């Protein structure tokens, strides 16, 4: 008796824990909606969850009652119960009643399904904006098309207005249309606070959408098993005020420009085949030279090596676009932070990453899936990092401060 009622109590507690107890510090919590789509899903899930709890309590309660009432208490009593073999009307009844309950649940379920899949007439101030979300082993690329993206004509090689990685910038309180696709295997793009997941299937451009009520940094992940570093294929959505978004767009649409004239002059000379080469003198200049000679085999930075870059030598054909690398607060599939909570740059992890990427994140680099160990010297690593930290405006403080990475 005790163990059974104890179990019932435990299950009831568990049921409450489900909704209330899902830890508040869970940044991927699907029960903590921060946008209209996630909210509408939550609004359907919660009542159906409680219907399910009631049904379970009835079924389990009936079992307990029968254990209490009908168990053999006196083994010597060998009188047999009436052999009731069925009751057609009762059985028809409990065929129809569940069907009716399900029928009632089906109505809002269907309505929500068509609603959530409808990506036409979204409410935003960027009439033709489409963002193509491209999954690949093991990071996410975001391609912004301000004049629209037509999946029947365009593909992920169609030049985009902005190409970025790991962090998806959106204006808060605006409905942004997405096309989800992949360059290699199937992934699935999930930012649970803002919407459900949509698979990234190579050959498909699946329409999807995203919206955040308030500015903030929202965390995302890959849902579909995609190989070695599936667990380390994360992403972030930075929802910002519209004015900040417009500033960000203005910056991101520009090619790389050096923060100081000397570095810019060095780069201009390097990029001009007719100019006389300048010997690098600073860490940034040595880093820029190294970036051009070494990193160009996979990474593009507009204004730095677009004259050299000819596609990434990887299975997926792409590596993160680094034009505005340091404007993002995370890197390597959004698993590492580039800034400390106080806003200052934290280059230790970046150095470790460049020193030996496969040691930091499982990959199959020898088969061109993931960044290989380039065998750089410590001085070279310092140079490249110094250069990379010149690649963009620092992100807003709230973005730098929000983190789940320990």
């Amino acid at each position, binding site marked *: 008796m005790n163990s059974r009622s104890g*179990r019932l109590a435990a299950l009831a507690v568990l049921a409450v*824990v489900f909704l209330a*107890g*899902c*830890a508040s510090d*869970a*940044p*991927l919590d*699907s029960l903590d909606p921060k946008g209209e789509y996630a909210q509408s899903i939550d609004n*359907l*899930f919660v009542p*159906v969850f409680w219907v*399910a709890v009631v049904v*379970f309590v009835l*079924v*389990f309660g009936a079992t307990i009652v*029968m*254990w209490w009432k*009908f168990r053999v208490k006196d083994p010597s*009593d*060998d009188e*047999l*119960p*009436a052999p*009731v073999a*069925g009751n057609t009307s009762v*059985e028809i009844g*409990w*065929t129809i009643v*569940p069907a009716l309950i*399900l029928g009632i649940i*089906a109505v809002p*379920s*269907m309505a929500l*399904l068509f609603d*959530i*899949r409808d990506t036409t007439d979204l409410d935003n101030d960027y009439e033709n904006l489409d963002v193509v979300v491209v999954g690949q*082993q093991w990071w996410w690329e975001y391609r912004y098309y301000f004049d629209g993206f037509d999946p029947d004509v365009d593909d992920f090689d169609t030049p985009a207005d902005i190409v970025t990685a790991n962090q998806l910038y959106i204006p808060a309180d605006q409905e942004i249309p997405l096309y*989800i696709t992949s360059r290699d295997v*199937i992934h*699935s793009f*999930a930012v*649970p606070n803002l919407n*459900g*997941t*949509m*698979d990234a299937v*190579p050959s498909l451009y699946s329409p999807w959408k995203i919206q955040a009520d308030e500015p903030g940094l929202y965390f995302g*992940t890959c*849902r*579909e*098993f*995609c190989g070695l570093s599936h*667990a*380390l294929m994360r992403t972030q959505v930075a929802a910002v005020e519209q004015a900040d978004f417009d500033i960000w767009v203005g910056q991101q649409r520009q090619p790389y420009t050096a923060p100081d004239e000397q570095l810019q002059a060095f780069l201009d000379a390097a990029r001009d085949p007719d100019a006389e080469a300048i010997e690098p003198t600073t860490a940034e200049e040595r880093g820029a030279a190294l970036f051009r000679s070494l990193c160009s085999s996979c990474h593009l930075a507009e204004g730095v090596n677009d004259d050299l870059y000819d596609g990434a030598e990887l299975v997926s054909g792409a590596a993160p676009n680094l034009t505005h690398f340091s404007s993002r607060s995370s890197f390597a599939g959004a698993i590492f932070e580039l800034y400390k909570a106080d806003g200052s740059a934290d280059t230790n992890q970046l150095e470790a990453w460049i020193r030996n990427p496969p040691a930091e994140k*499982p990959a*199959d680099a020898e*088969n061109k899936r993931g960044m290989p160990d380039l065998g750089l010297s410590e001085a070279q690593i310092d140079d490249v990092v110094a250069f990379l930290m010149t690649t963009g405006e620092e992100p807003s403080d709230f973005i730098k401060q929000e983190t*789940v990475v*320990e």
Partner: protein
Amino acid sequence: MAITEEATKELTKGDAVAATVEQPLGILTRPTSTKGWKSWLTTVDHKRIGILYGGAALLFFVLGGLEALAMRIQLATPNGTFLSAETYNQVFTMHGVTMIFLVAMPMAAAFANYLIPLQIGARDVAFPRLNALSFWIFLGGGLFLVSSQFIGGWWSNAPDCGWFCYQPNGGVIFSPSRGVDYYAIGLQITGIASLISAVNLIVTCLNMRTRGMSMFRMPVLTWMLLVTQFLLLFAIPVITVGLFLLMFARLFDAQFFNVAAGAEPLLWQHLFWIFGHPEVYILVLPAFGIVSEVIPTFSRKPIFGYSFMVFSGIAIGFMGWGVWAHHMFASGLGPISVAAFSLSTMFIAVPTGVKILNWLATMWGGKLTFNTPMLFAVAVVSMFTIGGLSGVTHAMAAVDTQQTDTYYIVAHFHYVVFGGIINGLFAGFYFWWPKVFGYKLNEKLGKTNFWLMIIGMNLTFGPMHILGLQGMSRRYYTYSGGYGFELWNMVVSIGAFTIALGVLTFIINIFYSKRKAAELPPVGPDPWDSRSLEWMISSPPPDHNFDEPIDVHGLDEFWHRKYGYDDDGKVIAFATAAEVAQTGDRTDVHLPSPSYWPIVVATGLPIIGYGLIYSLWLCVVGGLFVVTGLFGWAQEPADDPNAVHDDHDEPGDDGDDAQGASALEQSSTEEMSVDG
């Protein structure tokens, strides 16, 4: 029925007679021994094959369980280092493949092989040699799959693409080890075993029923197993097509799933899930059948709503074909496709719900004995209900986008497969153990086993709901702190080890009870006061099952031979089981002879498999095994030439043993189908 075995040998004195007669056919003479380990290799007795299936499945169960424990060690704490990503991906893949294809399916096959002929009053299955072939092919395929874990290095060549092995991730570019080759070939081999068994058992159910055993007098378990065999018959070919394409794509550059060559990767998902969803019912219906036998017995009441139980099973069997795309709600199918599958998925809950409620109604007003089999059966009712209800929450396709591929799904299907299937199979183990082995499993250890497993499973799979809703994706080899995953992952890992203790208790119980059995009185034919025909014969049953064919007059024939009604309509016992049961001491029944050939044919298939992976020359060797085996099989004398046939009953002879002796002879089908 061309392959129907003819009656061949004497039970007791045949061997002695054989020794004195010349052997005209040399090696092609059929083996006769029914004793010793060698006899297990050549047996065609459905009961022994059932035991072989069950034993093999239990070994694989331990293996799959160890894989689960390894995963839980890795995930107990954040940033675990017990397994590398590479190894973890192989371990979770092999856990799924093992538990589904090498545990749940063959355990159900064990019950089907052992019990269907007994429950319908038959001498054996329709095609005893095919039955043996099915087991040996299954075992070969299973060992082939498992061998991937150590051939070419410890855990370096096992499949690493998940049990549904989505393409192109399972292609040769993204999964360059040999693992997926093992997966594609191994599952084709075990698929052959399932298909053979399905045909065999369907024919058995349709043609081998004893006199008066009409279809709607078959026990619910036999019905559910029959529906399962039809599902296998139609589902296995679909996955075989998929696996065949995958094998050719990987081994011979056939490009079926290469997107760059114009392939559509969702094709694989459709092929897989058109098989994969009926597969869920293939796994769960046998467990439902077991529960439908156990609950009436220990409620001392007939099953409530027999025809609703049977028809809801059939309904699940049909509707199970129309729900596969609910595994693909987030894959980018159009909303109308998703809507159709969402609706069908919701409404498949109706026949399942009918079963739950009918089980409860069976218990209502009964006299309930909560011994170990009953506890497991009641656990199926409540635990499967949890799995079914969480299923409804992701039948709502939009809601599913927050749940799919998270631990919420892992929780859901483990409440179905562990809560429903494993608990059901354990109910079956404890229930039929005395019938199969002649001794009861110890009740005290049994209850310990039960409580460890039920508490363990709720600790393991309950918190997974929370982890999933908190956003933990499945198939993560690790997770960081800061996501709120720490506490529940630790609880899950503790739960997993609790389950392991439960399973360990079960294994101890087997040996402990066997040792103790010698001191206890024999269990007799009917230890539980049961209802169906298998309890009407001795425990363990004689090789020939029934001394006399049983005339069946209604559902629960055996019960009606023990109990009747007095003038007031009250149930009274008018015979004891011992009075009604057959003694099993008849010695002149013709049985199909053992055969060497099934195991020879089966040996060839994994060799062909290794050949496809490592050297095509090996395929020739394996092919020789298969061809030789089939040739020997075809040439094998239908009879042991030494068998003595002088006690032959004429078909149509109305004598008491006519049916029994002739059931497996030339005229058996006609006679049985007329009677049936």
